[in-house]
């Protein structure tokens, strides 16, 4: 029974709960058992509170018994990346500088999940402050890829991806600044969706690079990702960059297919990929063509410059966003003879090496005399990336590319070479720079049984189209 429960998607779970074939408490029991088996090996969570989750499950069963109508996420066990503010759990961004900090407020997305009766299991591991592509930069633990425990789950939302992939949570939230939802989704074989910038409120997301950060779902299926996305999207007055648009309807368009859709294969991004990843992308293309879409090649060279621009803009914003961790009011405080010495000692001890590297990069890029050469130039490149996408979308409805050039790499394999690590973001970064939506869908596995991810990219607000195409690929490669 328990294994069967773990197989259910959100819709199936809701149906069974409505028909009283299963209770919410039983559902939580199944996940508790799975966590007991998987978590010691995968190490996806930084905080877990199954007792509270079971209390909520009991309450929901009671409400159901009284004939109350429950929300769309009733009974759904959810994991949250630990850079989302929660009153119920500490929120650390996997950094020592915030060890034990419990926010006095919930992020907007957390409020919305709870409004729809989602059940929060705990907080997942990440690269410290979401800076990384392997979750190895966590100050607390290394999360393992459930498909091969010697390998990374990707990052920075590696904990969320691993939790969903190992079925410890039905769905999870991550954040995506340069691919941090899509890349780990690809490396762990789940669906990862980055919405249009402004679709999801960032209120309560610990900022890494404010102009690039977006929250989105990781899920086992396209439909589950669509359901969670619908719950969290839509305007929030607490985020001034939040779009006015309401949440689009995704679930009801999933079956509409791709007949007549024009899809562009971004050849120069495909060229970055390993042969096996290329095969996965081609398999996905074949399913689209079979479903009636036309696929043609397009080269968008500007997208590759996006990598360099990203590693100026993101650290620049991060250097400012992370200034507040100064030991004055919350988190770690190391003693010092003066305020200045206290701040220096606190930040020296509290931040890990990758975070320090990016703070230094960003501080340098914003410094007087270098600002124009670095920050201003990077913003110009960003404009070029946007223009390249606009050009592509005059001929195509959607674009297709690999999510990651490779499948999951070994733990420690790239730790000594940050630039090589940064390069693994080349296919995902352009969508963050342009603010456009993108989704990563599993596309078979390589010879080692490691998942391959294929990425669909669309213009701003094209989420319904993205989900239709993602659904076709999912269906075709099942």
């Amino acid at each position, binding site marked *: 029974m328990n294994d069967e429960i773990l197989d259910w998607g959100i819709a199936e779970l809701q149906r069974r709960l409505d028909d009283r074939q299963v209770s919410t408490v039983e559902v939580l029991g199944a996940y508790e058992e799975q966590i007991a088996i998987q978590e010691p090996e995968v190490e996806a969570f930084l905080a877990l509170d199954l007792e509270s989750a079971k209390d909520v499950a009991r309450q929901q069963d009671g409400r159901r018994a009284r004939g109350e109508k429950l929300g769309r996420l009733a009974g759904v066990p959810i994991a949250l990346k630990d850079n*989302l*503010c929660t009153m119920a759990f500490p*929120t650390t*961004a996997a950094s020592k500088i*915030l060890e034990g*900090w419990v*926010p*006095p*407020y919930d*992020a907007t997305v957390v409020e919305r999940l709870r409004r729809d009766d989602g059940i929060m299991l705990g907080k997942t591991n990440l690269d410290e402050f979401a800076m990384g592509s392997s979750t190895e930069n966590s100050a607390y633990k290394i999360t393992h890829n459930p498909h091969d425990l010697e390998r990374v789950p990707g990052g920075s939302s590696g904990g969320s991806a691993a939790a969903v992939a190992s079925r410890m949570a039905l769905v999870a939230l991550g954040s995506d600044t340069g691919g941090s939802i899509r890349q780990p989704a690809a490396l762990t074989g789940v669906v990862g969706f980055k919405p249009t910038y402004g679709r999801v409120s*960032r*209120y*309560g*997301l*610990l*900022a890494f*690079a*404010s*102009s690039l950060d977006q929250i989105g779902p990781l899920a086992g299926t396209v439909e589950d990702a669509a359901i969670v996305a619908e719950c969290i999207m839509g305007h929030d*007055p*607490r*985020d*001034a*960059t939040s779009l006015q648009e309401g949440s689009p309807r995704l679930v009801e368009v999933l079956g509409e297919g791709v007949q007549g859709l024009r899809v562009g294969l971004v050849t120069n991004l495909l060229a970055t990929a390993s042969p096996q990843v290329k095969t996965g992308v081609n398999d996905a293309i074949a399913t689209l063509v079979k479903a009636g879409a036309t696929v043609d090649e397009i080269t968008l060279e500007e997208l590759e410059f996006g990598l360099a621009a990203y590693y100026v803009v993101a650290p*620049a*914003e991060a*250097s*400012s966003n992370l*200034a*507040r*961790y*100064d030991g*004055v*009011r*919350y988190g770690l405080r190391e003693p010092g003879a*003066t*305020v*200045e010495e206290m*701040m220096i000692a606190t930040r020296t001890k509290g931040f890990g090496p990758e975070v320090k590297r990016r703070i230094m990069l960003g*501080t340098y890029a*914003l*410094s*007087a005399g270098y*600002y124009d050469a670095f*920050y201003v130039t990077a913003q110009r490149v960003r404009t070029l990336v946007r223009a390249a996408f606009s050009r592509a979308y005059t001929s195509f409805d959607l674009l297709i590319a690999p999510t990651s050039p490779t499948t999951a790499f070994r733990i420690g394999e790239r730790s000594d070479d940050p630039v090589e690590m940064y390069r693994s973001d080349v296919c995902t970064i352009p969508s963050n720079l342009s603010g456009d939506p993108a989704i990563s869908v599993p596309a078979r596995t390589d010879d080692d049984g490691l998942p391959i991810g294929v990425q669909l990219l669309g213009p701003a607000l094209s989420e319904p189209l993205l989900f239709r195409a993602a659904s076709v690929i999912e269906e075709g490669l099942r």
Partner: protein
Amino acid sequence: MSSRTIAGPAKGWEYVIGLEVHTELKTVTKLFCGCPNAFGEEPNTSICPVCLGLPGSLPVMNAQAVDFAIRVGLALNATIQRSQFHRKNYFYPDMPKDFQISQYDVPINAHGRLELPSGAVIGIERAHLEEDTGKLVHRGGHGRIESAEYSLIDYNRSGVPLLEIVSAPDIRDPDEAKEYVGELRSILVAVGASDGRMEEGSLRVDANVSVRPIGETTFRTRVEIKNLNSLRSLTRALEYEGRRQVQLYEDGETMLQQTRFWDEARSVTGALRIKEEANDYRYFPEPDLPPVAPDPSLIEERRSQLPELLSARRAQLYALVPDLRSDLRETVIADACWPYLRAALDAGITPSRAVARCANELTALLAEIDALSPERFVEILGLEDQGTLGASQAKILLREANDDAKPIGDLVVKLGFTANDASAIQAMVAEVINSCPEEWARYRDGDEKVAGFLLGQVMRQHGRQISGADARNALVALREEAHSDES
């Protein structure tokens, strides 16, 4: 308008002064969150995740602050433009995010000017929005951060909207600086943007000052003086700093560009935060806030609603009474007085009379103003202008019209001011001289000394109804009548 004598810091030298005035805008809530913008609350009670800069919090622009900034910009004849917020990055314990959200190269208001009572025009470079910091209280040591045993932070002030108004270096002496701040303050209060209370810190002034030999046209190294909490501190600090700089130059020493603070107790400026001179604020556009693009229709609406400013009143008055003493002028154009004067001028009352009654009788009544409305004030001055009332009657009636809300006509009757045209006054005087025939005869024959006695008799009987001047006029008229009867 009158011009002033400029006083230099030393013979042959002049000041070059630019002021940065920070004013707290009296919005209902803070600049980027919904916390009340209140003064004097218990420490750390008006706070939330946003103004505490907690991880994950985001700023949201307060539309009322933009509105106030626009009103000030219009009153300063500035260009109101689409503006961008920037982050000013530096570490300081009173700043919860360790950056301040401020405006940098595209402020909401640019290129304005302010006309002073003296007639001097001071350029306004910019007036931009920014957030205030928390308030540090240092305990122990000398109350300064370097020597304190510990420090407390009150975040109630954190995120309070500030408008920073930066003048051009057009101010030429400390008195002019004071005049500038006073005039700016009256504008901020008039447009409703600030309560203008310097003592509560809702108006804070930093001064940039340098000196140069008269005739030199380039600017020399400037010093920024902070901590000027009153107009008195401002002028004293500028005077001290001017003398100090001239002395340095005359001694052949180098002027350092630095930030100094005004030490009120010792009456000196001292160097401050030397290290910060090397500060690089790493400004960049605030990614959490879209540009503020003021709605052109809102700007036009605010322009049409702009209250009349002192400079406009000054100009109107100058056209009517050009030789008015400046202290009287400033008295009557003040907010409390002006509605009365404006009403009187609009009603065609003789301007000099209107000014005199405002500056004297009205000003005396302003502290206890009650039933005396501008309309009633004008009605009384109208009676005086027509000669229906004498001057002293008008003065008495003004006070009565404040204490008693009855119609002016009724008050005139109540006070017995009814018989007050020239013939009635003559009848009263005639009645008195008929009872003193001897004295009248002596007066009629040219003995001026008796006039005082006769007038005394008149005033004793009718003093509440007629003025001494009117009585004297009537007496003179009666004598002339008698002489012409004889001839």
